[in-house]
């Protein structure tokens, strides 16, 4: 009989689990190798030689800078909209039980529960029906819609952990609604909002499926990459951009994780 608590896993299970994690991580590492390859025309492995020249090539490319700038702009605006709307929604849902509350939560989750292509083609049809020309704002419209849920999930988890009597205590001590929000609610949910905002930014910065339907001729960084993947011109340039995208999305994800790690699982139902 096994009675001691320190059981160790069967080696087969351990091996499978570690193998699974390797399966998840090794492909990403390979990108790094390819960013330094001297081979331009094919995906030859191992690379015949190594060079740093692709980084300077990327630096000189105006089309890449334009794509980065558009992505940053879209992600920033979408994040701000998502922060405001997601926080409002979370505050309302956590605050009170009201008729139709469950349907409202479902509505917020729907844009990520249904495949992105549905959101994309829906917006595309709506733009077509209403004769709205493609612009930065049509991209923002789509991104903000699926970013709301990320902020909403983070804020809701924190609202639920924050004791309701804290708000009552603040009001009791003479603080009106606005003062209570500033001095008590905001400091409590601040880090969760920061985390939600960062994840929303990462999600928007990386989004491609919805964007292809709402961007028209504009190219965000992922759209630029997609075009390169379908019709490759300078393959190592794409590799360098891929590393850049990994960095831009990893940093906020790690930061968000550390901001909310005490007992909260952040946005498990990711994209």
């Amino acid at each position, binding site marked *: 009989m096994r009675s001691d608590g320190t*059981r*160790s896993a069967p080696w087969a*299970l351990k091996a499978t689990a570690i193998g*699974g*994690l390797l*399966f*998840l*991580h090794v*492909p*990403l590492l*390979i*990108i790094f190798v390819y960013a330094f390859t001297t081979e331009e025309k094919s*995906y030859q*492995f*191992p690379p015949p030689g190594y060079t740093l020249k692709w980084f300077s090539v990327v630096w000189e490319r105006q089309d890449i800078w334009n794509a980065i700038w558009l992505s940053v702009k879209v992600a920033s605006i979408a994040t701000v909209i998502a922060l405001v709307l*997601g926080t*409002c929604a979370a*505050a*309302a849902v956590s605050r009170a039980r*009201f008729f139709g509350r469950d349907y409202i939560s479902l*509505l917020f989750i*729907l*844009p990520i*529960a*249904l*495949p*992105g*292509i*549905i*959101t994309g*083609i*829906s917006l*595309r*049809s*709506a733009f*077509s029906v*209403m004769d709205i020309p493609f612009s930065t704002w049509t991209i923002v*419209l789509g991104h903000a*819609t699926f970013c*709301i849920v990320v902020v*909403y999930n983070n804020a809701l988890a924190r609202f639920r952990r924050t004791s309701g009597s804290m708000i009552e205590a603040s009001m009791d001590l003479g603080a009106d609604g*606005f003062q209570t929000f500033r001095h008590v609610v905001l400091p409590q949910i601040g880090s969760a909002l920061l985390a939600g905002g960062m994840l929303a930014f990462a*999600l928007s910065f*990386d989004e*491609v*499926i919805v964007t*292809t339907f709402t961007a028209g001729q504009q190219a965000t960084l992922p759209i630029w990459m*997609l075009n390169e*993947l*379908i019709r490759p011109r300078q393959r190592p340039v*794409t590799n360098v951009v*891929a590393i850049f*995208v*990994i960095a831009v*999305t990893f940093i906020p*994800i*790690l930061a968000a994780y550390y901001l909310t790690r005490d007992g909260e*699982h952040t946005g498990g*139902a*990711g994209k």
Partner: protein
Amino acid sequence: MSVTAAGTAAVDFGGGLLRRISDALFRKPMWFLALLLAPPLLWLGIVYLGSLFALLLHSFYSIDEFSGFIVYEFTLATYAELFRLSNMDVIIRSVVMAIAVTIACAAMAFPISYYAARYAKGKWKALFYLMIMLPLWSSYLVKVYAWKLILAKEGIISWMAEQTHLTWLLDLILSIPVIGGPSLSISYIGTFLVFCYVWLPFMILPTQAALERVPGNLIEASADLGAEPRQTFSTVIFPLALPGLIAGSIFTFSLTLGDYIIPQIVGTSTYFLGQAVYTLQGTAGNIPLAAAFTVVPIIIMLIYLSIAKRTGAFDAL
């Protein structure tokens, strides 16, 4: 009103505009709630539901075959087009792929989740969680791109096969009819691998969450009652983890069904549902048929969700 030792009134009506607004919201809590809910509801109601409605509307229009313009008249002709052999082919291919990917993801996710939930402790557990979260959130396109590099004819897999003198095995696999092809990156096997890779974290997280909820003493109780480890697994652990697996399958199934980028980059030239939609609305400009195509995954997902709901999978989401 009397004056007390403290010399202050029991009720104080001073303060500026903000305080007065705060008063009004306090007296009408439902208004406050409505004020909070209105912006997000209006946004999602107009932008999202409105668009879904526009999509649905389009699926009942048709396209004039000669001019290529949309005919804004109610018709079921577009839906009838879905039943053409070539279109049914696309739908069936997508559903089969979604089922295969879901089963493979569940098989891979279970041991990882089980290890993370039952054996990983403290720092290791946090690391494990992070190791699953990072690939989940990292760039979708980059992940697909990485696999293009791996699966390419001149890529890593071919190289490794060469180094280990297993090229014959790779060729054997590629020569399998239907799923094989000239190279892994131009075959259904390749598409399948990339789908599994990209959606695997979506299966791990809910499964792990469900396994975490299995109390440890339940397993000990089962062992105590004389169950063999295998019996404990099949009668206690697996049934309790099932809602998590089903919750994960909602993601893997739905995401595979709607994806159009993976089969475009890694795969054969035959279409999957997402590609069909994308091509129809883009180069073909046939939004009505694209819309009708999109209704298919919506309906499949609604059926899937209603079945999943009965198994209690929603609590594991």
